[in-house]
């Protein structure tokens, strides 16, 4: 069950964060922040391997007793993180990939909007609605 979806800018500032349970938002902010460590490490490792074409989907970032975090990095270094409940084993890798693809498309569309400055916190309502929908559907 995806409990939280977050977008992190290329300079590691939070762009957008939405979670199912509003009361846990602060905690997810902290968790999202810690995910940057693992994303950075994965990027370094994929850079070391030297292939030009980098897989955007990073896979499982880490899992703790409570949550599992999955990561995705766009070519512009915008990080997308999906956090799911550790007890949930229904969500498969494929489905997570699919969610990431949808999120990536949504972000691409957002960036196409000339009124949005890349790097600013995302306030678009339609974008928010889309993420909410994904959260709801994956749960």
């Amino acid at each position, binding site marked *: 069950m995806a409990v939280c979806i977050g977008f992190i800018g290329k300079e590691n*500032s*939070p762009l957008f964060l939405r979670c199912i349970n509003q009361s846990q938002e*602060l905690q997810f*902010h902290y968790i999202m922040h810690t*995910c940057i*460590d*693992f994303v950075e490490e994965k990027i370094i490792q994929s850079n070391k391997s030297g292939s030009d074409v980098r897989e955007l989907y990073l896979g499982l970032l880490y899992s*703790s007793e409570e949550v599992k975090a999955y990561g995705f990095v766009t070519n512009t270094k915008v990080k997308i993180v999906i956090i799911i409940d550790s007890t949930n084993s229904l969500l498969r890798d494929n489905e997570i990939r699919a969610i990431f693809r949808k999120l990536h498309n949504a972000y691409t569309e957002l960036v196409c909007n000339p009124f949005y400055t890349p790097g600013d916190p995302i306030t678009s309502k339609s974008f928010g609605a889309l993420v909410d929908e994904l959260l709801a559907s994956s749960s």
Partner: protein
Amino acid sequence: MSSDLELPAELMSRPLALVGLTGLHVETNQTHLLIWNSFTSSNRNERPPLNFILFGVNHTFPVAKPDRASYEWYIPKGILKRKWMSKHLNQIPGVLVLFYDLEWEDPSWKAKHAECAHLIQTIRMKLMGRGTKLCLVLLQNSAPLPSSEDILAADRAAALCQVCELPPKSLFVLPCRSDHLQGYTLRLESAFYELCQSSYHLSSRAIRSHRDQLNRTNHGYLFVRHQFKIGFYHELKQDVAMAHKHYSQSYAHLLELRITDANVTEVKIVSGYIGYKVWRLSFLLNLPREAIAHFRSHMDFFRLRVGNPLSKFEHHAWLAAQFSTFGRLFEDAIELGLPAIQTQHPGFFYQQAAQQAIQRKKACYQDYAALEQTAINNLTPLFFGESSQLEFYGQRPWRPNRLSLEPSDMKTENDGITALLVRERLQVDLTAMIVGALTNAVNQFKNHRSPRMKQYLLVQMAEEYCRSENYMEALTLLEPLLWDYRKDFWWMPLTSLLQLGLRCAYLSGRPAEYFTYAVELCSRVTIKSLEEKTHVFDNLVGILQKRMPPSPPDSCDYSSATQLWADQFASLAKGACITTIVTNTISSFVEVKATFTQKQFAAEDVVELEVHVIYTGPKPIRFTSLHVALNNSAYLPFCQVKNSDELEFEPNQIRHYEFEFVAQAQDIGTELQIVSVTFEMGDELTAYLRCEGSSSEEFSPLRSEFPSATEKGLAGIFVLNTTEILPRTANVELVVHHEAPALRGECYPLHLELFNRENEDIINVTLTVTTSSSNGRVHDQPKIDGNVSAQLKNEKLTAGQTCQWNVFAQMEQPGNHCITFQVNYEINSEMRKNSCTYKSQYVKTLELETVQPVECEAQFQTIQFQPLRQIPVGEECVAVMTVTNLSPFPLQFEQGVWKFDTLLTNHPMGNSQLAGLILQKGEKANDVAVLSLDNGDNRQIRTGSYTLKWKRSNQSKVEGYKIPYSASSFDLPEMETWSVPLRIHVTLPAHGYVRESMNMTIVIHNPGPSYIELDVYMSSNDAFMFAGNKQIKIQIYPEDDYVLKYNLYPLLSGFVALPPLQLKTPTSTMDQVVAMDQSVLDELVSRYVPTHIYVLPQAKEKGKTNLLRSE
């Protein structure tokens, strides 16, 4: 239960096979002490893993319980017995060794060997029912013989074995007088080790044999216990793989047990113990994945098995213990070389341990708060005794040795747990546990490249400190964390941390910290409602009026805080500064950009400075003053605002301030920098908000500025943090008059005219003239020397006037040369009502072209002006110098001076032919000197030099100065000298007439010291008939002449060839005659003998007269 949470020492230690030594009287017998020491001394690592214990001869071992014939009616009361492990580690040896002093040839052999047998028998009785093996070691003084030769020894050994009922392999002889005691004991040890292994093997077999008698319904505990024991025996015999297998089985049996509220605690505790063995051995067997997987399933199985709802805190305590135990095992394995990765390392387990410890504390406090006071008073902690006294691990003190399936008495159960809860609440330092676990986790995450995870853990640590009222620690931790989250714009965590800080600062009575956090909380970046911000803002303003902020709504004890605040306020005098906040390191509610309006200001200009301020707080604010500090504090009075009306801000208002001042003289040429902009606020107490800009980056619109500069407000303002104060611009003009190009070596006059265009008089004017070229010189007098620079001075030059100088430059090389003129002066100027002396500088550069003035070409010629290749000895010749004027100006020559080598004699010619001569551009003149070489032979000589003194002929413009002549010197070419072997002198009229005879005399002179023989040939030609010797052989003595006379009769007119003379060396000459080379002779002839002559035709009239005359 809490004491059983800690793993018992016997579980954690590495089990070593126990060998008991007896019969050694260590206190009285030196030899025995030596033997004992040799067993227990150093290098345990390299020796078999054994643990030696010394028992007295009369030591009583724990009595073994008799084996059960049948388990049918037996129901075990617990899973693992508390004493069993330590009993086998420390009390019941695998092998017991009896040391006995007995020589083979002992005279009282009989008696002694009976005593020995008796001793063995006694010990055997004591260890009845144990698998312990017995050994006998005979201590002998004599050196051992090979056993086959010592028949007595063999016989007696066999007899001894028989009487003691020992197998022959259990009898050893130790020569204790030997120097190689250590070697013997080592061999004994390996023998003991083998015996131990077989002893433990037997024990485990014995336990296994019980299995058939057990049934699943009643003996679940025994399945677990027996497998554990077998595993432990295997561990004692160092069979790690088998031990791991049996421990795993034991664990599997444990999970099959029926778990009820009554036994859940025991099962959890024991599962933790067995799990510990399983995980530890998995790591030891290099199966870390298996260990982790096993641990995870362990946690999954027990996570929700709380048991009694009251014992929630116990459950969390147990979970925390599991995580931290596993974390430590993992960490130990890493220390032994197991590689860990970022996503799988002990930190995660420590983190969970901390989480569970936090939960434990929470549950404990909650449940404790729910208790009624009377219930607490009625209980005495430890009413039921310590659980460590119980027979089985993990059982309840109030329910000892009760079968788990018996229904429990709920009242006792609840009372017991309540007693534990009270003890937990009042006696256990939970904060230390949480912080300890967090510290462990922090270290791990730091090692595994997860700085942000580390930050998150530190946040939790700070929160824990705050909860445990350790506010100082919390604030210390908080400070760097705030920066970490602020730096990447994580505003929500930042807000939460600030609130935590605010709370800590409030509860510990610290106005400065409270104020700082409040300022940041009021800024626009924090995620708080306007209402909350307004509330915080009111508190912040209140502090400056010595008003204590209201307590946070959830804070329970604010009485002490109130007192602290009152004390703090009392200690602060009126107007005292409570804090200075550096606002550009936090996201403050005031954002400042301070900039100079220009990159550079001239010294006489007014320096302009702008400060732009945006205020983003929730309510209007009024600052007391604003200061801009520059790197020179002298400007402070010009850069401040004190009128507080101008410092009143509405929320989100932007104000601009402009400052002007005149740069001071000592700042000219330096950089002025804006160091900080400071706001002062409050009057009862004051606080300063300072925006610093130590480097231009910090004021620049980059990321480092807080809060994000991309937002509206001051975003568009470009910041110039520093400005340069330039020297005053000079307002004078220097005109240089000269006649280019300069001539090389010439004393070249430059006429300088300085025009003062300033409005004021200028004083202390100095003009420095410098040549850039290394072989150029300048001088203020017309002299042919000087330095690379010259300085000219003038005390004062009134406005609008000029002054003039002459300087003279001399360039030694042709080409372009730079001459720099630098004018320095001072001027007194009135600026903003204070007179100030400024220094000004004016620089002008002149590029001067320099050309070669004259060209001189020297040549040596015969006296007939025929070119000479060699200078003949003893003859006169001339040196001709051709001087060409290459310069564009007419040149006047003073004189040309020859300077010849001393070998050459100069025939004085009076004045130089060039003296006073003026050559126009391109004209040439010759200077001639006659000279002769008196003696010498054939060699190369340096002929000398020629110096020409010259100047421009029209240089009359430089008034008051007489320009000296410049001298140009030229080297004459190097020449060969030639001592001529023959000198031929031909006497011939200047011209002849056709058909009129003329005389030719040829004198051949021999200047050398030797006799010469020559053949002379005179050939005829078409132009002449001649009379005289046509062919003759002549001999000439040294210093002698030979004269040949010819009468020539010209036949043709014109420039006709004379009959050619030819000299040859005779083919047959005598030895003493110097043979001359034909080529030399030919050259001599061609040199001295004219080849042609003008023959005039006969005039007809004249011809008649001539004819008449001849008649």
